[in-house]
């Protein structure tokens, strides 16, 4: 994580001119006054699936950490023998901000990779507009926990298959079958390094969320997304 902090340097020295979310926006009178509404989208997936890359391709990425008390779940994993006093653990994640229009900001949060930080996921997921689950076809199983998590909480998500160079190409349908996804959940091939791809993914996700919202308000209770 430390290498990522290089981005932190310039703005952090000046507690005045806040985040220059887009080039020159701070100087544009229309953007004055900052965001009034904030929405968030999560970027999940297994370790090395490209979460940080994706967040960085569409927004200025920043590191974020929190100190959390070690949960019962975390204890067997964190070997605290000999350091019993250590009751907290540091959880690091990435986040980025995109200014969508004056008064509206979208925050992207890369979820912590390790499964033992589920308690952080819960907080991240609260009120989230949706989630992108990045899948690496070489290690498809790595994104199972993410898929399960969002299915259980009925959070709209799509699966983005990050096409690494040299990795075998699978069709979206093959990935859908392998992940046992419901037919309405979008599966999109992408290159997480490309800004255009990142934008397309986000648009597709929000459209999916809007469509699901429409149907779910019509039929009151849950849609097919939580059906499994």
């Amino acid at each position: 994580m430390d290498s990522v902090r290089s981005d932190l340097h310039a703005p952090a020295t000046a507690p005045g001119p806040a985040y220059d979310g887009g080039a020159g926006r701070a100087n544009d009178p229309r953007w004055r006054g900052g965001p009034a509404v904030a929405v968030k989208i999560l970027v999940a997936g297994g370790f090395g699936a490209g979460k940080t890359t994706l967040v960085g391709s569409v927004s200025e990425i920043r590191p974020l950490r929190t100190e959390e008390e070690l949960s019962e779940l975390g204890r067997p994993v964190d070997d605290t023998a000999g350091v019993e006093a250590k009751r907290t653990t540091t959880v690091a994640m990435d986040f980025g901000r995109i200014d969508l229009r004056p008064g509206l900001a979208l925050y992207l949060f890369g979820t912590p990779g390790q499964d033992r930080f589920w308690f952080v996921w819960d907080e991240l997921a609260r009120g989230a507009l949706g989630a992108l689950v990045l899948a690496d076809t070489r290690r498809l199983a790595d994104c199972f926990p993410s898929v399960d998590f969002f299915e259980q909480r009925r959070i709209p998500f799509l699966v983005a298959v990050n096409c690494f160079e040299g990795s075998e190409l699978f069709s979206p349908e093959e990935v859908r079958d392998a992940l046992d996804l419901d037919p309405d959940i979008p599966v999109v091939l992408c290159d997480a390094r490309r800004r255009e791809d990142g934008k397309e993914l986000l648009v597709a996700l929000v459209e999916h969320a809007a469509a699901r919202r429409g149907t779910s308000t019509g039929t009151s209770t849950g849609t097919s997304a939580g059906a499994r």
Partner: protein
Amino acid sequence: MSGPMADEEPKAVAADPEPPGPGAPGPGTAGSGTTGADAAGTTGGEAADRGPDGPDGPDGDGSGLDLFRPRTPVDDRWFDDEAGPVVRLYSMTRGRARPVEDGLFDLISLIVAKDPAPVAAAVPAHVLDPEHQTILAWCRREPISVAELGSYTDLPVSVVRVLLGDLYDAELISVTRPVPLAELPDERLLRDVINGLRAL
């Protein structure tokens, strides 16, 4: 993301929470009430001027090329911080792990300093720690999310929340909670998000 600067960044980051506090937006200016906004403005300017100098300081020292340059406060601030944080995180929060009101400070809750700050004068400056002052300085210009505050101050979000709780109790900040999306099938908001993304 790792650049050539990566090595010295932790130093710079570690030092950052300090300077804004004892600097211009410190206890003195906070007490002066009506000039608060001006003080914040000049702080930003000074800090911006200082910014480019920051990396030069350690570089010069490291290579030993510029030993005769007069030392500035910018140089001096590296000394203590190189030894690591002097104040343990939970000393800043006086042992508190949770803010007073749970759920108020979501990661994307937007915080803004109350303006003008007549109330600030009512709160004795010495009650606020440097970290409080730093956070407050960040909140002065425009609403800023809890996540950004954590990132800018290099403090864990959990600590930022406790400190924000103090500022909230002192009525120095106002908080906008995020839209509860689950309860709000707001097609217009979603359309705004989509249009905004397409226009990027």
